[in-house]
């Protein structure tokens, strides 16, 4: 069981002493377990997000925009989006990719391509230029490799020109065991992280890889977030 702060799996610090606060907790018999561990993934950790704050500027006005959330179903996200007068769309791409158990790796080249084709035939099926904004969160980090580029291309296709996309990427310091979090919108500048299903981090993108992956977008801005996360705001 991990004992560090979220996303610190790669930290080289001893497991029991990660901070002075932890030291005193141990000294007095306290627990270093973060609240989400003891609450079976139900507890949430609030985190300020500059990237999301910038993203909301694109969706504040006018009303009636279409916003696609690619994360797990979150009532707070839906309420936030619909509270702005927009139409909320939800599609849990990671859950779909894991449930379908498509053969992406270890098979022949053709089978991976067919699996990707089957996946995209059922998921992200929207008309071109449908959405004003897309919340991608850190989906790219957890998607199977063959799906990353096709999914990004599909998202580009269904996003309107001038539409915004918010994506998160782990830094190398996050480590291979970085847990998957669900992101809940608390307000315009704060997100709440909640431990989600045990998806495995597939890769760590460097800034250059991110730029290449989203090279068709008109602008790209990087924000260094907390817990070894880079926040990226893209405009189509």
């Amino acid at each position: 069981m991990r004992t560090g702060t979220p996303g610190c799996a790669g930290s080289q610090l001893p497991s029991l002493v990660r901070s002075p606060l932890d030291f005193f907790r141990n000294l007095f018999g306290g627990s270093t377990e973060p609240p989400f561990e003891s609450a079976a993934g139900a507890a949430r950790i609030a985190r300020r997000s500059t990237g999301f704050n910038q993203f909301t500027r694109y969706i504040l006005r006018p009303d009636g925009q279409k916003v696609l959330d690619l994360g797990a179903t979150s009532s707070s996200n839906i309420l936030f989006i619909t509270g702005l007068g927009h139409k909320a769309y939800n599609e849990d791409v990671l859950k779909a990719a894991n449930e379908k158990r498509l053969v992406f790796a270890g098979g022949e080249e053709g089978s991976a391509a067919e699996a990707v084709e089957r996946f995209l035939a059922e998921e992200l099926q929207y008309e071109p230029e449908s959405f004003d904004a897309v919340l991608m969160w850190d989906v790219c980090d957890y998607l199977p490799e063959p799906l990353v580029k096709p999914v990004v291309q599909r998202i580009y296709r269904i996003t309107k020109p001038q539409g915004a996309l918010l994506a998160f990427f782990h830094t190398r310091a996050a480590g291979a065991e970085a847990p998957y979090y669900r992101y809940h919108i608390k307000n315009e500048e704060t997100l709440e992280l909640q431990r989600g299903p045990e998806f495995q981090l597939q890769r760590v993108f460097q800034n250059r890889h991110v730029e290449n992956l989203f090279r068709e977008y008109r602008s790209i801005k990087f924000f260094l977030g907390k817990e070894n996360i880079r926040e990226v705001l893209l405009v189509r």
Partner: protein
Amino acid sequence: MWKARREDEKPSTPNPSPNQNPQPPAPVVPAPASNQPRTVETPRMDTYRAVDVAHIGKSVIIKGELSGSEDLYLDGEVEGNIDLHNHNLVIGPNGRVRANVFAKDVVIHGKVDGNVNGVEKVELKKSALLNGDINTQRIVIEDGAFFKGAIDIHKAEPKPEPVRAVTPVVAPPPVASATGGSAAAATEKK
């Protein structure tokens, strides 16, 4: 000086202290992780077995149009359309619906493939699986529910105010002044 207070004159305490009336705290159900087997919440059946609630059991399969003018608890399978107008629909944990749903309040515990139109409220319980669009005034989604589609929240239409009985105001007949009055009055006089 002090008047003895009788038992029946004791002030009522809307919030009695815990010692007087101990009650167990409400159980907190942790949200299940998606990779764990989905726990199917079994709603209290007596809640839905009121006199005015129709009940469709889990072994019933209906293909076609399902409409009615009473509340419905559906635990079986329906393929087609469900239209309950101004009545409530509860889709139980065993409910499997491949239909567009139209009702006043819709509560989903089971699986729905289709669009859900709840005039007042749509509620997705933690065991709910919904593939389709939601159109409603209010929505409640429990942690763990799965939803794929669009949500359109429309504001409640303002209720029309009751029409007051208004006494019609009769305009007084124009009185032509000695100096001439209005042009219309002057024309009529002619």
